[in-house]
């Protein structure tokens, strides 16, 4: 079975594309059928992914299957559509298909009654297809193609409720910010194509081995990292992710928690041989990752919208993964990506069911006492939060611990401290949310909240189960099976140490305790904390005013410049043309005065001409005469 599926693994992205085409062209008038078709297609993809994963993980580690067909080739440039199936791809396939399947099932409940369900499912299957295409790509060109397609799908899904101005603008903002990242990514691709003549990962890594001068590679690696900065919303280009919460919550769960934002990390993992060859680039990645983690965690503390909190938490966790990549612990990064995908999508879906129950109310301060009304959502949400904070038995603990270990092992003490502090903050803001929203005093809006239908709660339960189990895959109990398969020769191999495990658990528990004190017991009242640290609170709440800075810069540099250039175009370039026309008109106007209607004047002009000729003839000849 595996041998049959493997060579045509391109079926995995193809099935959802077919679903998209069918829905788009024919079925969009029947929402029910299109939803069913889309879920059916993603289910098939999930099964295929399972088969592939089974096959890959049964084969010895490090075996790579590669097939590719001609897509765009001419003498000197060869970009083909191919398949690269190895452990990394298998893991990503599993993660993407599971989360996508569960989210699509969940959406049946969440989107009930929405007129545009058909197009919603069309975009969902298009997204699934392009994400899967990106995962199995075997060269950078093909990856860039799907990279942009994923970007446009996120644009369509964020702007799904295009009736709202905020959704429309958020979608544009998301695409443009991604596009800035893609600009760097494209330049890196161009450099690599010119330097090595190929974009295929295998050939690249071979020719990279022999490559000597590293100085050229530094800008290339950093430019290549621009793509992930844009896509995985790292520090300078993170502004779009919080606004992306305008889209429906299942979309946020799928795209802005589990899959798309993880694409950046996946690219770094896939092209790890490029980055690891350039130590400067590694430090850049580590620093940006660390900073983003800290930066986002601090903002999450002060947010009031349930989805915004989760969005900043995602930002922070992505920073974690990038930091892991930066310090060389590629295995830890990928492992954290996998676990994070599960529990973060769980949290988002939980938030979604809360929002549905609360009839579109997203402010946590207006929620309270939900644990009585929505037991399943509450407990699954708590499991997710525990996993995220890194409490031992759950998956988050193992992956985060791995990263902290990696930080220590690679000697980045500063990053370890940041990592630990972020872990503390994560526990704090997650349990702030839980205590306020679920266990807080009973607010008015919360009465009529009641548990959602099975179609929404079942995926929550499944995801909760996975996020409990997922951690064991790379735990010492299963002798680091995950690390055994996904590792890179250049990366560092952190050996488990008991002290770090205990210390990170203690930090997480401290965060939970602090949240319990402030928000549940109100021993330290949140109000005076806010009052005492007024300045800091305001800065954090306004997201360090970065959005405002970008808006101000944008207005100056882009719109202002555009107006200046338009003015230049109209008045200088067109002005020059109109000036020529005006000059010809004026000369006509002046010359008309020579025609005064007198016969003798005309006679005078004629004879003047004749005399002129004679004089010039005489002048020409006078040397001969005199």
């Amino acid at each position, binding site marked *: 079975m595996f041998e049959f599926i493997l060579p045509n693994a391109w079926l995995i992205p193809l099935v959802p594309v077919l679903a998209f085409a069918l829905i788009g062209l024919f079925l969009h008038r029947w929402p029910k059928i299109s939803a069913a078709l889309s879920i059916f297609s993603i289910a098939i993809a999930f099964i295929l992914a399972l088969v592939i994963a089974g096959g890959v993980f049964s084969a010895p580690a490090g075996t790579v299957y590669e097939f590719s067909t001609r897509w765009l080739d001419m003498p000197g440039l060869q970009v083909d559509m191919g398949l690269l199936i190895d452990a990394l791809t298998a893991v990503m396939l599993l993660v993407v298909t599971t989360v996508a399947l569960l989210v699509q099932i969940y959406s049946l409940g969440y989107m009930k009654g929405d007129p545009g369900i058909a197009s919603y499912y069309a975009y969902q299957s298009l997204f699934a297809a392009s994400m899967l295409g990106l995962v199995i790509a075997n060269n950078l060109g093909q990856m860039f193609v799907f990279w942009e397609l994923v970007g446009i799908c996120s644009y369509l899904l964020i702007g799904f409720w295009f009736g709202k101005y905020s959704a429309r603008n958020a979608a544009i903002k998301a695409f443009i910010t991604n596009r800035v990242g893609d600009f760097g990514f494209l330049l890196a691709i161009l450099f690599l194509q010119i330097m090595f003549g190929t974009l295929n990962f295998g050939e690249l890594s071979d020719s990279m081995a022999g490559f000597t001068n590293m100085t050229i590679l530094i800008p290339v690696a950093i430019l290549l990292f621009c793509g992930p900065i844009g896509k995985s919303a790292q520090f300078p280009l993170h502004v779009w992710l919080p606004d992306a919460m305008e889209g429906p919550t299942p979309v946020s769960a799928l795209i802005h928690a589990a899959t798309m934002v993880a694409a950046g990390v996946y690219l770094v993992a896939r092209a790890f041989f490029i980055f690891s060859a350039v130590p400067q680039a590694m430090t850049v990645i580590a620093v940006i990752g660390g900073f983003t983690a800290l930066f986002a965690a601090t903002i999450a503390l002060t947010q009031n919208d349930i989805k915004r909190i989760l969005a900043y938490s995602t930002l922070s966790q992505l920073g974690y993964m990038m930091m892991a990549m930066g310090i060389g612990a590629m295995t830890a990064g990928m492992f954290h990506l996998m676990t994070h995908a599960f529990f973060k999508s769980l949290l988002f879906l939980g938030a979604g069911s809360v929002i549905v129950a609360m009839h579109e109310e997203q402010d946590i301060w207006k929620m309270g006492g939900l644990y009585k009304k929505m037991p399943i959502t509450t407990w699954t949400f708590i499991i997710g939060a525990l996993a995220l904070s890194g409490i031992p038995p759950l998956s988050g603990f193992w992956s985060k611990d791995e990263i902290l270990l990696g930080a220590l092992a690679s000697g980045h003490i500063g990053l370890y401290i940041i990592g630990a502090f972020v872990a503390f903050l994560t526990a704090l803001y997650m349990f702030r949310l839980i205590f306020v929203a679920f266990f807080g005093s009973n607010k008015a809006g919360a009465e009529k909240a009641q548990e959602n239908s099975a179609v929404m709660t079942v995926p929550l339960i499944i995801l909760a189960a996975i996020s409990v189990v997922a951690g064991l895959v790379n735990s010492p109990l299963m002798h680091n099976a995950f690390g055994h398969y996904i590792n890179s020769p250049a990366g560092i191999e952190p050996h488990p140490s008991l002290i770090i495990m205990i210390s990170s658990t203690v930090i997480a528990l401290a965060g939970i305790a602090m949240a319990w004190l402030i928000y549940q017991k109100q021993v330290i009242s949140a109000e005076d904390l806010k009052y005492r640290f007024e300045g800091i609170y305001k800065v954090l709440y306004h997201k360090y005013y970065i959005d405002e800075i970008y808006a101000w810069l944008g207005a100056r540099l882009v719109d202002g410049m555009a107006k200046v250039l338009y003015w230049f175009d109209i008045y200088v370039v067109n002005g020059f043309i109109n000036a020529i026309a005006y000059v010809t008109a004026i000369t006509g106007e002046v010359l*008309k*005065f020579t*025609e*005064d*209607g*007198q*016969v*003798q004047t005309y*006679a*005078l002009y004629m*004879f003047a001409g004749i005399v002129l000729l004679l004089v010039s003839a005489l002048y020409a000849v006078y040397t001969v005469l005199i």
Partner: protein
Amino acid sequence: MIGLTHYLLLGTVVFCIGLFGVLSKRNAIAVLMSVELMLNAVNINFVAINKFITPNDVTGQLFSIFVIVVAAAEVAVGLALIISIYRHRKSVDLNDFNLLKW
């Protein structure tokens, strides 16, 4: 000793006087008369050159006759024009006719 040059100079003088008359006189008939003068100047040159350069040939004189013929025709038509304009516009002053004015 009078030579061909003097005749040609005489012709030029008469021609220039005629030209000045054409360009400056107000009365249409005066302009016509000046034109006649210019034509005569040309004839003088014709006959003089015929006498001095090709004495035993009369082509020069032949051409001067043709000039006279043309001059006669031209005066007849010119005066008829002037008269018909006069009858129409009651004036012979060239400055009054500026229909072509911009």
